[in-house]
């Protein structure tokens, strides 16, 4: 059994007619429930539930404080390479985009790591395009060796891998995996990934499970919002997170609700996702998985992010750059435009002003095994 | 010559019943043993050498040296 089989159960599910039958009383009852079922989660994602956002927000806020405290974890992305063999029509790094391709060498990785570490951050998320030729596992591993000197937590957001490859990276010091399914609807998925290894929907979907089996500590899943109707995508993302949490109770599971942003070779999002939609998604997920993490990146603008802190967010990026060597003043296109340009210290000040504590370091891996 | 061992006599057997040593006469069947003990055959079940034996067969089982019997009964329990 894998999540791929789980999601198949919904192949013929009619979301629209389910939503039509929901009335406000169903929503109110669901908000008050101590434990939400899959169906309850979907009720909170319904158009009807938009009438109860404030009630959902109050409960989501309390639950977040109860389980996480008044803290936000800060991290930043570090783009190692933008070589990519995939054809994702919505991505700035896709193979057909004429752009200068770049991969950091190890001294450049060191240099950028030093700049980031000077801001106080201890958690880093490293990213590459999908190219096993230009950024093979061995390259990622060497980068991790460099980064270990500066950071206590290293997460990867790279192409999906086999279990033994995850195990190899975990042994090298990686403790977190972020991998977005992009879109859970399998038909839309094949339309948007016309060629390249990423066409393999199932291999990507089962990547978090493989990483969990390999011993990863945190996984972060998500759908890229705008590629499909958001309600069903939010639903499947939540189910995916819940599935992982049930199967791997020792792993910290979180979701990201990334909304599409403008990028090189612009692909306008086919489906709109408003601020209100984003908020509803976060609140519904928080009520469904009170202990699940919610990561909000700099795709969202500063003003909105300031509000999302009290609406279930647990982790935020700061001082971001989405281009390779972005902090080294390389002239290179980013994967997407960021909307919140604030530095780490500016984010920290904003958090303090809201009564929250920024957390830079959540743990320290003790690498040596006792004899 | 006088033996230094206890002679049990040719016509008795050592058996284990419900975990305890017992002595039975040679030629005793399971049914005989139950009768000697005064159990109502309708209320008990017998495990003979780790295998449940139905009451119809008790007449035909001749006890041998070192046989193990459990005489059991269903009782009240939660």
């Amino acid at each position, binding site marked *: 059994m894998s999540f791929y089989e789980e999601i198949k159960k919904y192949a013929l599910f009619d979301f629209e007619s389910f939503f039509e039958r929901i009335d406000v009383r169903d929503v109110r009852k669901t908000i008050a429930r101590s434990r939400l079922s899959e169906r309850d989660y979907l009720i909170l994602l319904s158009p009807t539930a938009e009438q109860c956002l404030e009630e959902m927000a109050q409960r989501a806020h*309390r639950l977040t404080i109860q389980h996480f405290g008044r803290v936000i974890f800060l991290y930043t992305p570090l783009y190692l390479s933008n070589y990519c063999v995939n054809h994702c029509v919505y991505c700035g790094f896709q193979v057909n985009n004429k752009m200068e391709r770049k991969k950091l060498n190890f001294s450049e990785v060191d240099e950028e790591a030093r700049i980031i570490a000077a801001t106080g951050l201890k958690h880093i998320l490293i990213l590459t395009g999908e190219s096993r030729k230009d950024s093979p596992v061995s390259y990622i591993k060497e980068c991790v060796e460099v980064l270990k000197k500066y950071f206590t937590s290293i997460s990867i957001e790279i192409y999906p891998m086999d279990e033994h490859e995850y195990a190899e990276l975990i042994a090298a010091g990686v403790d977190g995996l972020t991998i977005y399914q992009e879109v859970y609807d399998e038909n839309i998925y094949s339309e948007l990934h016309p060629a390249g290894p990423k066409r393999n929907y199932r291999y990507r979907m089962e990547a978090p499970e493989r990483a969990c089996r390999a011993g990863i500590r945190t996984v972060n899943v998500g759908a890229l919002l705008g590629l499909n109707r958001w309600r069903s995508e939010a639903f499947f993302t939540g189910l995916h997170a819940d599935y992982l949490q049930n199967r791997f*109770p020792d792993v910290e599971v979180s979701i990201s609700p990334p909304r599409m942003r403008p990028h090189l070779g612009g692909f306008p999002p086919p489906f709109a996702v408003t601020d209100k939609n984003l*908020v509803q998604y976060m609140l519904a997920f928080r009520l469904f998985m009170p202990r699940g993490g919610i990561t909000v990146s700099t795709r969202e603008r500063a003003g909105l992010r300031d509000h999302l802190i009290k609406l279930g967010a647990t982790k935020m990026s700061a001082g971001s750059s989405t281009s390779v060597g972005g902090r080294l003043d390389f002239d290179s296109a980013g994967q997407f435009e960021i909307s919140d340009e604030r530095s780490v210290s500016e984010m920290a000040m904003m958090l303090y002003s809201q009564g929250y504590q920024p957390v830079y370091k959540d743990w320290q891996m003790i690498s040596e095994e006792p004899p | 010559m006088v033996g230094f061992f206890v002679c049990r006599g040719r016509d008795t057997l050592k058996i284990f019943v419900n975990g305890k040593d017992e002595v039975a006469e040679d030629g005793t069947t399971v049914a005989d043993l139950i009768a000697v003990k005064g*159990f109502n055959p*309708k209320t008990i*079940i017998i495990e003979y050498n780790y295998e449940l034996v139905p009451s119809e067969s008790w007449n035909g089982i001749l006890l041998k040296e070192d046989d193990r019997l459990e005489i*059991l009964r269903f009782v*009240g*329990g*939660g």
Partner: protein
Amino acid sequence: MEDFLKIGDRELTSRLFLGTGKFSSNKLIPEVVKASGVQVVTVALRRVDTAFEEENIAAYVPGDCILMPNTSGARNAKEAIRIARLARAAGCGNWVKIEVITDNRYLLPDNYETIKATETLSAEGFVVLPYMSPDLMVAKKLIEVGAAAVMPLGSPIGSNRGLRTRELVRILVEEIPLPIVVDAGLGRPSEAAEAMEMGVAAVLVNTAIATANDPVAMARAFSMAVKAGRMAYLSGPGEIVDYARASSPLTGFLRE
């Protein structure tokens, strides 16, 4: 819509299971079964040590009940497996309640040995209902090894202390897709109703019924309480609402 409890291949309408220990007379058992409508009745298997004439309890259990032998007396998985096999060979059907106890002070079950026995017996085709200390990881393990239901204790056997393990049982109800049967410790019908309202699938009661002054009436009372609790659960009780008023709205900015 009929509300069945499906365990193994049986569909039960009664969600009260009866234990048969400690009755002042076995003659009460048919009456108790009749008054309460129970369909699952547990019995134990014991060595017969004296010729003192005793009865076969099974003779008092109406034929349409599922006779569920327990493995009480077993101190490890091996013994439990042996007892289960014997009981089945003796005509008890294929249901078995695994009960492995190594602790004579509190009579708490040994979850580790229970998992081992459940694994072997499920593979042999038994419908296995393991009695356990309510523990989420153990329950997950029991699913994996083929249990048909899990039976967490409410409080120690025979203690009549009620549903002391409430929070842990609630977690099992939320997380475990098998029927949860609260076994042991329920002393009063109201406690059985409480367990049923929480969403447990059934309760097993012995001491509270067997040792009441009027066991037949008490059995009826438990039966009614179990039905009431089940009905309340199915009718979706109103959630406890938090009336605290928010000091400031959190979503006001969306209307700006």
